[in-house]
Structure formats: structure tokens, C-alpha cells
């Protein structure tokens, strides 16, 4: 019986690394199955660390690394882990990866890691990581799971980037810490919008992004 079940899996082995299906795994999270605006996963950190573009990019990369590797590892051991204790196993794998990321950030970009404060640790409970393990990695082979992790991490980073660009530009007139709005404009009486930097505006910006996305992509509309 098992030999029969093995056969189609072995046939799949010859599938090219970036077949059409795998590329779809990479591109879908940008629109049709975006982790933030469609799957509603990982909202907490998306809102809190989008005041500056630099923080958002570092955070997005960290989440991508953790999602990709936790998907890979869980997919490799999915047949040996009893179903009852899988949540604990997932938490341990994810927490170990997050510790690695946290220590790396502290070593190389200490100032950003200080600004991110608790949110690096909170990648552990970021629903994207657990959600993708549960929904994808436990039922798929390691390579597609890895791709799925990268795709979802980048889809998450994409929204983070848009929100952060918007908030940094209107909130402090900068992009990546570089002043974009010239001093002359300030001299004429332009003032940065302080509200954009405050937490409530992040929610409203994400709400607006969802609005724009759903009016372009009408199949996502809820009733």
C-alpha cells in the first residue's frame, strides 16, 4: 500500500524547482491571498512597527526568514510528530528560530533591534508563522513549504512597506531616514502631520489599503 502511495510522490521529484505551481505560491500572497489583508494574519506587528521604513524592512525580512525556515523544518518532520503535541513542537521550533534572528539583529543592527523592542520576540506568536505551518507545511513537501513561507513573508512585508512609506513620508517627511520634503517647504508653513505617526493612523491606513485592494479585486468582497 505504501509503495503505491509513494509512487506519485517520487514522480513529483522531477518537477523543476520553480515550476508554475511554485511560482504561484510565491506570487499569490502579494494579492489574492495576502497574509494581512485577506488571511488576516500577523496584524499586531504590521501596525506597530510601520512608523519608519527601515524598521518595517528589517521586521519584514525577519518574519520572512522565520516563516520560511519554520515551514521547511516542520514540513521535514511532519511525519514524525504526533498530532496531539504538534502545537508545542511548532512553538519550540519557531521560538528557537526567533532567538537566532533576535541575536543576529542585536549583533548587526543594534539600534533597529532596540526600536523594534518586544516585537521581535512577538514573531513567535505572529499568526502568519503558525498559520502557514498549520495550513500549508503540515500537508506539503519541504521545498514548496519553504517557497510558501518566503511568499507569505514577502506578501506581509509588501503591506508593511506601503504603510511605512506612507507614514514616514507624511509623518516626518522622510524616506529611510533621508529628508525628502525640503526645508523651503517647511519655511512656507508646511507642518508634518503628527497624527500619522501615532498608532490609530496605522489602523486607518491598513483599512484604506484593504478598501483599495477589494475594490480592484472584487472577488475578495465579504457580505
Amino acid at each position, binding site marked *: 500500500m505504501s509503495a503505491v502511495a509513494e509512487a506519485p510522490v517520487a514522480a513529483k521529484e522531477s518537477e523543476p524547482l520553480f515550476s508554475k505551481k511554485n511560482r504561484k505560491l510565491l506570487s499569490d500572497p502579494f494579492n489574492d491571498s495576502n497574509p494581512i*489583508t485577506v488571511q*488576516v*494574519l*500577523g*496584524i*499586531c*506587528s*504590521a*501596525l*506597530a512597527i510601520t512608523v519608519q521604513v527601515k524598521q518595517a524592512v528589517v521586521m519584514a525580512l525577519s518574519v520572512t526568514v522565520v516563516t520560511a525556515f519554520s515551514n521547511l523544518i516542520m514540513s521535514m518532520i511532519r511525519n514524525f510528530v504526533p498530532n496531539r503535541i504538534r*502545537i*508545542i513542537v511548532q*512553538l*519550540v521550533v519557531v*521560538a*528557537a528560530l*526567533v*532567538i537566532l534572528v*533576535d*541575536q543576529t539583529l542585536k549583533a548587526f543592527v543594534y539600534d533597529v533591534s532596540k526600536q523594534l*523592542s*518586544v516585537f521581535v*520576540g*512577538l514573531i*513567535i*506568536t*505572529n*499568526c502568519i508563522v*503558525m498559520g502557514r505551518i498549520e495550513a500549508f507545511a503540515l500537508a506539503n513537501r519541504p521545498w514548496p513549504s519553504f517557497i510558501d513561507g518566503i511568499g507569505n513573508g514577502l506578501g506581509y512585508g509588501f503591506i508593511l512597506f506601503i504603510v511605512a512609506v506612507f507614514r514616514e513620508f507624511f509623518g516626518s517627511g522622510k524616506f529611510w531616514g533621508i529628508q525628502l520634503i525640503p526645508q523651503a517647504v517647511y519655511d512656507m508653513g508646511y507642518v508634518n502631520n503628527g497624527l500619522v505617526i*501615532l*498608532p*490609530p*493612523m*496605522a*489602523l*486607518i491606513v*491598513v*483599512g*484604506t489599503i*484593504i*478598501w*483599495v*485592494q*477589494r*475594490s480592484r479585486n*472584487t472577488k475578495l*468582497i*465579504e*457580505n
Partner: protein
Amino acid sequence: MEYLNTFIKSIFIENMIFAYFLGMCSYLAVSKTVKTAMGLGVAVIFVLGATVPLNYLIENYLMKAGALAWLGPQFAAVDLSFLSFIMFIAVVASFTQLVEMAVEKFAPALYSQLGIFLPLIAVNCSILGGALFMQERQYSDVGMATIFALGSGVGWALAIVAIAAIREKLRYSNVPAPLRGLGITFIITGLMAIAFMSFMGISL
């Protein structure tokens, strides 16, 4: 007085949802009716109030640099703080498991009301967030950490019950189609957060 101040501050000013967006996932997913929102809110208060003091003790007597000094002078130089993430999440996950089993055994009626939410809480960011804020802010004693945890829990419960009540009424209003559901919830939460900002600067 300082306790009361921390309590008020963690409910209103440093609200888990409106100031730090912690626990947003379950906040958005379980806020369709007031009744279930209330159930989850109570469960979060309870789990936060229990795990944060527990993590405080672990942090201060096991993990911190020099925290093991009570074992003997040769342990004074040990610093296990890099393990704190894995320790905190292990405490949270095992505690929720324990609570779930205890509630199922001793209060089946409560279990059938809360049952589905309890396992969800293990991955609610606000619980781990509470532990991490406790670590970052260096509260002076375990009582302070407990008060902070209870305040945060109450603040979270307040937020989810409020949004659930609004969403129940929202069902009868004519929201533009692409904004229905998730979009409008985000925008309303944003407006509520602006309202909560008026508490800023209050200190007793």
C-alpha cells in the same frame, strides 16, 4: 497609589489593542458577537494575570544576569537571558493547556462556553506581549507585575467587547461593499484608538 496608577495606565493609556496592537488577530476574528467577545476577554484577563507573575519570577530568579546567585556564588556570572523567549512561550503554552484541562474537569459548563477560546489564547500576542513588556519595563516587584498584567487584560477585554458591540449594530448599516467586514473594522478601531488617546497624560 502606585499600584492604582499602573492599573489605570495599563487599562487606558497603554491599552494592549489601541496603543500596541497586541492580540489583533483574535480581536478581529472573535468580535462578531458581544457574548463570545466577553468570554474571550475574561479568559485573556485570567491567563495574563497568571502567566505574567509566573514569568516575572522565572525572569528574576532564573534567567537574568546574576539571577542564579541564590544557588551559590559560582552561579553569579550565569546569564540565561537569551533563553527568555522560549521560556516565556513554554510557560504560556503549558499554562493554557493546564487551565484548559482544569476547567474541563471542574467546571464543564464554563468549559463549553470558553472551551474553543482557551487553546487560541496560547498564540494570542497579548499574552506573550505582556511577558515581554514586563521584562522590558523592569517592574519593581511581583505585585506590580500582577497589577500590570490584570490592567492589560481588562483593557484588552474592554476593547474587544466594545468593538463587538459596534459590529453588532454595524450589521444594519450600509457600508460600501469593498469596505465591508475587515476594512470597516480596521477604520473603526482606528477611530476608537483616537478616542482612547484622550486618556493620555492622566496620572493619579
